[in-house]
């Protein structure tokens, strides 16, 4: 390939998004926009109890309503299907997870029956006619209580403990023996929230009894994972399941776990004689019963530090709450260890990690999945140590950061951080926020009795998983590495058409994929059609295809790049034949007759139609030695991973490490206790940027989610498992009036692990949660408050600041000074 033809033109440009044309005109195709002939509508009947035996279900009243086609109960589903696959090992692998509850319900909102009717309104009417008798059981809403096993959720497992493992590296005992300071933190708590995409889950399923084929049109965001669960559950060949996604109105991971509802819709369609069945989730259903992010408690943390405040060891006990059914779990029990030391250099650590089921909504991979909880924990630990040892929070971090000259950096558990420069990010953030000015203003404000804090959050967005880490939670799982597929073809008339296995929800994959192909072929991106949205029948997907876990820029675009290069190589062979020259003499570009391949020596050219025609319609002119060319090139990109050492829990778990450094100035109002953001900076490093405004937009979006989660968004359950925040009036997503202006900055440390230097990004490591906790810490440490929860609003701050015993810090945190 000539260097000239491969020079980068479009990657790195601020190209307008190809997606906008339809979305701005109201012509997007979201799942609920799809109407099919003879379509029926499904509504679930859901449990009002968090934990109860189902004594009886009577659907006869609903079935008698004119316009109702059928009803479906958990018992029926259990007779027709296998329980869903469990990812984790025994004894929890023994549990029976069906998409409709069978003999008992385990969380409020759990579906236990469904009705199918000719219209959505009729389905609503019918659902109200279903009679269920319950016998309430003791609910368990706290993971630590659940581990006492006083009330068991899944009798088949005989325990509420889903998984436990010790992650130990280095020499912890020695580090504590030699420590100048030991800081002990009794407990910290990361709260439950959900990124609540604006479009709810939608499933349309058609199970045609004639050809035993199930056709889904839906907004699941990891269909290749869903079909593996569905095929085993429904007892059908995986090739018989077609999943098609179109425009998706946000997912943030939450739509990965919609496969139970997908199963019910298929079974309902079969029962209705093969008519298509549509289910559109309501917002309340979404908040109470789709998926929440993982809640996590951190107990008995001990930190060893040297005399300069450099952390040498951490030990801690982490208890993760996965709700009523593990589903995607216990993968979260290992995924956090992709960022085991966070951005810090400490080598010695022991984390005892457990996960428990509780009578709450099951969790799912929510933006920042499993890593953000751990990164928040580390940022709290670093911050608490800084304040206790009276070291400025910025200085504390600089003393502990992995240094720029240490990359690629191997973490104690064998992960390889590709590149980064955290001190440079901090300096840029300080410049953008006006650090010194704010420090001066803070001193003046404090004299006036105002509570103002400046916080730093440094975090990581690890992208492109090694699925081999799943073998750390269960050595029998058949997954490792990571792969993505793409297809690049010249169609019959020479159109360049790219298909990818992702299902984007606003990340601009059509645009960035076109930029990559445009560079390979040296043509304008407008000349490239990108088919996005998942479709099993395009045959481009692998077992890992979907859109999740901050990876498209690496795995997806590497696959696109590979497919485009494969196509280009075929085009060269064809053009060399057609133009009677050798391949080195060829160049790619656009001429009078559109995109073409030219012979530099003669100036003769053949356009894409001419090339495509040789293969497709003018094939008598093609010599047999070129018969193998198809101009329809599928490429599978594979990440260069090895299976981790599952006993030592050691190995490379992720390919790229984007970093975020945020700073916030927060004031807590002394009268109302309302925390208000006065200034905010987000500095991002995701390596080489493919399309700057797309990256910037993702940073803003992740920032809004983090700020919302830190101050406004909390899934609240009462003591008996009632969910108290089931609408957008109670579970309040951040609005235009709450969202501060964000000052954006970025640096680029290109990744040596991707062909383009890009790192996967988009999740953002929940930087604002760490940052706002740190800012509140800075504002309130003098008042004796240690921020021990990731969620802080006026109510919790009021309680903390007006608590009678202001010596809470003494209880929560203890410092042993040995120097």
């Amino acid at each position: 390939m000539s260097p000239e033809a491969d020079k980068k033109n479009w990657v790195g440009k601020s190209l307008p998004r190809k997606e906008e044309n339809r979305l701005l005109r109201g012509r997007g195709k979201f799942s609920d926009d799809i109407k099919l002939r003879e379509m029926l509508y499904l509504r679930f009947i859901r449990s009002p109890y968090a934990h109860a035996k189902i004594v009886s279900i009577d659907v006869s009243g609903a079935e008698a309503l004119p316009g109702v086609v059928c009803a479906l109960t958990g018992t029926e589903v259990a007779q027709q299907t296998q329980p869903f696959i469990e990812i984790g090992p025994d004894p929890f692998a023994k549990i029976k997870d069906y998409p409709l509850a069978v003999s008992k319900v385990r969380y409020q909102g759990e579906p236990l029956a469904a009705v199918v009717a000719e219209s959505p309104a009729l389905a609503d009417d019918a659902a109200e006619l279903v009679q269920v008798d319950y016998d309430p059981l003791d609910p368990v809403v706290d993971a630590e209580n659940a581990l006492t096993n006083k009330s068991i959720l899944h009798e088949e497992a005989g325990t509420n403990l889903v998984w436990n493992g010790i992650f130990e590296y280095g020499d912890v005992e020695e580090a504590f023996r030699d420590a100048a300071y030991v800081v002990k933190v009794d407990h910290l708590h990361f709260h439950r929230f959900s990124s609540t995409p604006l479009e709810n889950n939608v499933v349309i399923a058609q199970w045609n009894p004639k050809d035993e084929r199930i056709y889904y049109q839906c907004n699941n965001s990891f269909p290749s994972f869903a079909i593996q669960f569905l095929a085993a559950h429904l007892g059908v060949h995986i090739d018989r399941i077609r999943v098609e996604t179109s425009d998706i109105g946000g997912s943030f991971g939450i739509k990965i776990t919609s496969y139970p509802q997908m199963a019910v819709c298929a079974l309902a369609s079969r029962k209705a004689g093969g008519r298509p069945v549509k289910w559109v989730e309501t917002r309340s259903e979404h908040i109470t019963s789709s998926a929440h992010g993982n809640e996590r408690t951190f107990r008995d943390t001990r930190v060893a530090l040297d005399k300069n405040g450099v952390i040498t060891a951490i030990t801690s006990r982490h208890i993760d709450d996965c709700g009523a059914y593990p589903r995607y779990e216990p993968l979260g029990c290992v995924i956090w260890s992709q960022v085991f030391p966070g951005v810090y250099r400490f080598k010695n650590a022991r984390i005892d990690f457990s996960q428990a089921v509780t009578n709450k909504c099951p969790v799912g991979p929510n933006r920042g999945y499993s890593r953000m909880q751990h990164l928040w924990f580390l940022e709290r630990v670093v911050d608490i140590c800084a304040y206790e040892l009276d070291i400025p929070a910025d200085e504390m971090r600089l003393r502990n950061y992995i240094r720029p000259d240490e990359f690629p950096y191997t973490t104690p558990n064998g992960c390889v951080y590709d590149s980064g420069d955290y001190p440079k990010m901090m300096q840029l953030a300080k410049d953008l926020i006006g650090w010194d000015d704010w420090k001066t203003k803070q001193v003046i404000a404090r004299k006036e009795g105002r509570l103002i804090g400046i916080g730093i959050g440094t975090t990581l967005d690890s992208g492109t998983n090694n699925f081999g880490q799943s073998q750390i939670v269960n050595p029998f799982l058949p997954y490792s590495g990571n792969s993505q597929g793409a297809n690049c073809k010249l169609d019959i008339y020479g159109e360049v058409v790219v298909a990818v296995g992702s299902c984007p929800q606003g990340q601009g994959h059509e645009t960035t994929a076109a930029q990559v192909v445009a560079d390979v072929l040296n043509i304008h991106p407008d000349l490239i059609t990108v088919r996005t949205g998942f479709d099993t029948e395009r045959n481009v997907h692998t077992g890992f295809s979907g859109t999740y876990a901050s990876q498209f820029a690496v795995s997806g675009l590497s696959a696109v790049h590979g497919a485009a290069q494969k196509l280009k190589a075929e085009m060269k062979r064809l053009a060399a034949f057609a133009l009677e020259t050798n391949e080195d003499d060829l160049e790619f570009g656009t001429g009078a007759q559109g995109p073409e391949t030219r012979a530099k020596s003669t100036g003769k050219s053949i356009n894409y139609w001419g090339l495509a025609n040789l293969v497709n319609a003018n094939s008598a002119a093609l010599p047999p030695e070129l018969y193998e060319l198809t101009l329809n090139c599928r490429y599978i990109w594979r990440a260069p991973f090895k299976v981790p050492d599952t006993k030592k829990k050691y190995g490379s778990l992720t390919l790229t490490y984007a970093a975020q450094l945020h700073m916030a100035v927060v004031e807590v109002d002394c009268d109302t206790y309302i925390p208000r953001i006065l200034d905010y900076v987000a500095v991002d490093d995701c390596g080489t940027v493919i399309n700057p405004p797309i990256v910037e937009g993702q940073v803003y979006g992740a920032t809004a989610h983090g700020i919302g989660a830190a101050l406004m968004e909390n899934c609240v359950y009462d003591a008996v498992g009632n969910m108290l925040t089931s609408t957008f009036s109670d579970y309040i997503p951040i609005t235009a009036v709450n969202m501060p202006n964000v000052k954006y900055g970025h640096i680029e440390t290109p990744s040596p692990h991707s062909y383009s230097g890009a790192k996967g990004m988009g999740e953002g490591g929940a930087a604002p949660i760490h940052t706002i906790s740190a800012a509140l810490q800075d504002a309130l440490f003098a008042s004796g408050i240690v921020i021990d929860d990731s969620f802080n609003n006026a109510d919790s701050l009021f309680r903390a600041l007006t608590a009678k015993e202001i010596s809470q810090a003494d209880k929560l945190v203890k410092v042993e000074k040995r120097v």
Partner: protein
Amino acid sequence: MPEAVEKVTLQLTVNGKLHSLSVEPRVLLVELLREILDLTGTHVGCDTTYCGACTVLMNGAAVKSCTMFAVQAEGAEVLTVEGLEKDGELHPIQKAFGDSYGLQCGYCTPGLMISTLQLLSKNRKPNEKEMRKAIAGNTCRCTGYQNIFKAIQLAAKNMNGA
């Protein structure tokens, strides 16, 4: 029982086109638009008047069509996102949202553009506070609003011919 539900007749103008229909009284305006008129650019996000994905203009005022019965729009002029473009040319607000990267998944965008239209038709040069207030009832989960603020400012500038 469904057979017993008496339908009511309704006349309204949507995107300049007059419709005479008969609908069940319980049909919501957004259901009329999406299910009966097949104008699926208007979306439903929360069912409770909070998120604004269903915002349309009714007689010049932005309303949330998920919390209105269709029959309440009797005789009204309704404008949805599909009515913003003219002869295939994007409205300056649509253009500004695109140019400013003011959307990601695009689910909230139709409602946001309608709220922006209401704002800019009453206030040609909104300040930041007015702009934020005007879209306070429109939730966006993707953009963090930063590029939406830029889009509104750009649209205001372009519509004023500046």
